[in-house]
């Protein structure tokens, strides 16, 4: 097979041979030939059984009878596991308990796992699972945020961030508005659904192939349900067909079910969820209800803001605390809020436990402040762009976040300037306004929204990574690290870093499947931190090995170690090539020098006070900006994105081709979240949108007609992240917020200046139409921005 090709993209760091280059994905050949193996493609072991999980069909009910005898007797069935059959742990909650493997006498959401069957085929397992007799006694269910708030149902206590005197500042402001915004959730729809295959090993050990972003946690939780120490369980994942946060904690449940069935049956078991069941059984992005009150001056400069952020967490804590913390940490987005209060409610509902999703609460926090700024602009009858720029964080002053971290690396002013120029904003704003004056039916809107996203797990201890680098005597290198490859190009980037360190070609580095047997106790590949943590760890391992090689060579060649360089597949001293890298490795081995090592990295310089939430939770910020233009049919609410211009900051990109892909894909995924992807639960708590036929994910025809994406190649990470690059996994998702605001802008064109434009997310065509209808009725400018009555000024 031909070696991976290189795409021609701007070179970021001319001196580097491998790092910073637009090299193809390390699995590119496998991807395009069908040879890349995903969990469901692993050759099936002899005696493999297939599992099926029976789901509850009540949102909240006591289980008065669960009789699985008929399932056990059904043809082909080898094992049936209910809660009562579990021998050890029964809960797979990642941080706190609450996520039962199987329901225990009570179901707490529609679609909860009742029991599972392993049989000789999926069909037998499925048929058998339907034979159980289940009787319920229905209980009252709390299904949405409002109900939960009314009843004080929460998975964890309310948290608050306060800075300055928000109440006083709002009271003393020339203008005030208040209002609320509902933000929908999102299904991950990783193209490869949840899947695990558990294979019993000798001595009762278990090997689990799992499509997971967090093998160490799967290992620990599977060991728990099997009643084994962690060392008896190995979890392996070569690649995922997408994760997006949906396989950070959710994969453990799937793996645990496969593992307990395998243990029971003494045979390998594969559980590959049917797509509908996957969408029903596993958590999603949290939907939010935002209430706000804001006071501002006549220029639209915010003086005080009071936010209430409430999210639907579902039945258990899962990662909801960290997610809601991050929402709070991003309710400032790019703007200086001198006086602010952010109150966060973590609502418990009888719905599936919501979980990590690209952005991890950050997008919802950003939506809140962007919405407020847009409403401020509507109230004042000004271009939202001006109001956004007025409120932007300063570079040297006005740079304190609500949580006490100083924004030290602000590049937003430059990004605004750049996108206004490249997107030709001023002229297009005039053209949009002119178009709207002339067209009664079609309406256009345009908006620019920025992204400032904090990089680091806000749970400080998770900011660590490990790697194992093995150099062989022929100079080829095997690399293993704790990160998961889920399409984001992590394996490629870390391999590039290793090749760069040793000065060898990329094809001399082979990345092997992530496994708990090689690098232990890893953090999830999440928080965009994959390459920061694992890349830095791999570099450290390389440097240890290089140090030994250098010492060895210094003795051998009689040259000072510092003058030795690893480049062009060889060892050099000044201009002189001393020997090939392979030769060096061979000689070093004969000289009894250790050619392998581990590397470890812990992000320095971050800390948070758990009680006040103040401190420096983030090592640095990643930035981006987007300008979107839409056209809306005001009679139907249908719309198209005509053009989007994006400039995104990856610092000194480790691989511009990979990063461009992350930016483009993130934008579209964010756009989908805020436009067409609508999750709908009926009044019994049943998810009605559980397949792509009813849940509308953007397809090729939804991509902006004209889509221009650039990386801010001039940006360098001020923090000492690996090779001054910046994390890129999550931040671009929030560029999609620009599309929501372009839609809001188009809707606003129907109303006189000064009118509030209410629009909840996702802005489906239906919601857009209803918003337009509302405005057509309300032509009274006094209704603008739902102002606080006594202070309303025009």
């Amino acid at each position, binding site marked *: *097979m*031909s070696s*991976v*090709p290189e*795409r021609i993209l701007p070179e970021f760091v001319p001196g580097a041979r491998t790092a910073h280059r637009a090299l*193809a*994905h390390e*699995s*590119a*050949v*496998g*991807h*395009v*030939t*069908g040879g*890349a*193996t*995903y969990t*469901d*493609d692993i050759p099936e072991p002899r005696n493999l059984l297939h599992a099926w999980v029976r789901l509850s069909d009540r949102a909240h009910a006591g289980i008065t009878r669960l009789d699985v005898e008929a399932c056990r007797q059904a043809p082909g069935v080898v094992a049936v596991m209910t809660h009562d059959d579990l021998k050890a742990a029964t809960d797979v909650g990642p941080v706190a308990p609450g996520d039962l493997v199987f329901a225990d006498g009570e179901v707490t959401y529609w679609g909860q796992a009742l029991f599972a069957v392993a049989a000789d085929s999926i*069909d037998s397992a499925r048929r058998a699972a339907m034979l159980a007799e289940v009787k319920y006694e229905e209980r009252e269910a709390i299904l949405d945020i409002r109900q939960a708030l009314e009843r004080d149902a929460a998975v964890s206590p309310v948290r608050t961030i306060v800075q300055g005197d928000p109440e006083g500042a709002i009271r003393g402001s020339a203008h005030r508005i208040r209002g609320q915004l509902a933000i929908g959730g999102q299904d*991950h*729809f*990783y*193209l*490869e*659904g949840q899947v695990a295959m558990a294979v019993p090993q000798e001595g009762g050990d278990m090997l689990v192939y799992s499509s997971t972003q967090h093998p160490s946690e799967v290992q620990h939780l599977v060991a728990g349900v099997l009643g084994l120490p962690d060392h008896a369980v190995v979890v392996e994942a070569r*690649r*995922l*067909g*997408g994760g997006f946060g949906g396989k950070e904690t959710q994969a453990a449940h799937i793996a645990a079910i496969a593992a307990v069935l395998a243990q029971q049956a003494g045979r390998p078991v594969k559980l*590959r969820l*049917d*797509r*509908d069941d996957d969408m029903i059984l596993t958590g999603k992005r949290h939907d939010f209800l935002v209430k706000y009150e804001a006071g501002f001056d006549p220029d639209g400069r915010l003086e005080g803001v009071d936010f209430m952020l409430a999210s639907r967490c579902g039945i258990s804590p899962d990662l909801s605390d960290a997610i809601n913390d991050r929402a709070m940490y991003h309710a400032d987005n790019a703007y200086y809020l001198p006086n602010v209060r952010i109150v966060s409610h973590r609502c418990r509902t009888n719905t599936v436990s919501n979980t990590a999703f690209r952005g991890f609460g950050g997008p919802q926090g950003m939506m809140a402040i962007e919405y407020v700024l847009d409403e401020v602009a509507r109230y004042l009858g000004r271009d939202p762009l001006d109001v956004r720029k007025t409120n932007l964080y300063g570079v040297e002053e006005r740079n304190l976040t609500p949580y006490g971290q100083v924004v030290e690396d602000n590049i937003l002013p430059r990004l605004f300037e750049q996108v206004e120029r490249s997107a030709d904003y001023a002229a297009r704003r005039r053209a949009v306004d002119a178009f709207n004056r002339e067209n009664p039916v079609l309406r256009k809107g345009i908006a620019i929204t920025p992204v400032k996203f904090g990089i680091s797990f806000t749970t400080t201890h998770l900011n660590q990574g490990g790697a194992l680098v093995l150099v062989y005597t022929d100079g080829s290198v095997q690399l293993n690290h704790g990160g998961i490859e*889920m*399409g*984001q*190009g992590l394996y490629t980037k870390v391999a590039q870093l290793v090749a760069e360190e040793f000065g060898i070609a990329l094809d001399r580095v082979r990345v092997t499947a992530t496994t708990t047997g090689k690098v232990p106790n890893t953090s999830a590949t999440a928080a965009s931190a994959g390459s920061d943590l694992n890349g830095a760890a791999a570099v450290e391992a390389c440097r240890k090995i290089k140090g030994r090689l250098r010492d060895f060579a210094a003795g051998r060649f009689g040259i000072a170690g510092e003058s030795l360089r690893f480049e062009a597949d060889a060892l050099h001293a000044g201009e002189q090539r001393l020997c090939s890298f392979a030769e060096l490795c061979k000689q070093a081995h004969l000289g009894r020098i250790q050619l392998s090592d581990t590397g470890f990295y812990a992000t320095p310089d971050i800390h948070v006070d758990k009680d006040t939430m103040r401190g420096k939770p983030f090592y640095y910020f990643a930035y981006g900006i987007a300008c979107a233009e839409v056209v809306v049919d005001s009679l139907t609410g249908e719309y198209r994105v005509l053009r989007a211009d994006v400039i995104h900051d990856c610092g000194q990109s480790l691989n511009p081709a*990979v990063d*461009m*892909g*992350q930016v*483009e*894909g*993130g*934008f*579209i*995924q964010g756009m989908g979240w805020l436009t067409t992807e609508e999750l709908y639960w009926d009044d019994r708590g049943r998810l009605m949108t559980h*397949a*792509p*036929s009813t849940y509308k*994910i*953007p*397809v*090729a*025809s939804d*991509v902006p007609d004209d*889509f221009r*994406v650039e990386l801010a190649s001039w940006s360098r990470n001020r923090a000492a992240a690996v090779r001054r690059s910046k994390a890129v996994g999550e931040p671009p998702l929030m560029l999609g917020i620009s599309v929501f605001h372009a839609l809001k802008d188009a809707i606003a064109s129907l109303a006189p200046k000064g009118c509030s434009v209410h629009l909840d997310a996702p802005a489906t065509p239906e919601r857009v139409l209803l918003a337009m209808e509302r405005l057509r009725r309300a032509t009274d400018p006094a209704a603008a921005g739902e102002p606080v009555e006594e202070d309303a000024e025009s």
Partner: protein
Amino acid sequence: MKRMITVTINGEEQELAVEPYRSLLDTLRVEAGLTGSKKGCNVGDCGACTVILDGRPVNSCLVLAAEVDNCDVRTIEGLQHAPDRVHALQDNFMQYGAAQCGFCTPGILIMGKALLDENPDPTEDEIRFALAGNICRCTGYTKIIEAIRHTARQLAEERQGVES
């Protein structure tokens, strides 16, 4: 009860024993051992399982194996010209970075191939339309569309080269 079918997969005639309700996708993945075609939804909505059946693209999860008796099926494994020579579409997907997690890629490549077979010079809109049944959750489609367009141009040039 299983029944025997004869089907030509990637140019090779095979006899397979299949259950009457078995989908073509499962038959390819399990009985024929060709796991390149992916199962994304199993209900005809994602396109990950796309194969070419008698010259036309189909969602193989919606076709029963029993229906393809005496038919010709082409899967991702049959797209390359030789073990070491990939199809231009495959090459361009690599060049353009059109695959991220790669799970949608086989289905999209097959759809792209079917499109170019029918319409060798598609406009961007025609490509977007042809791909509207293939979900990709990672890439945002831009690189996929570019790669298909570029392939069309390349193949056109090759054809002209042959003619002149």
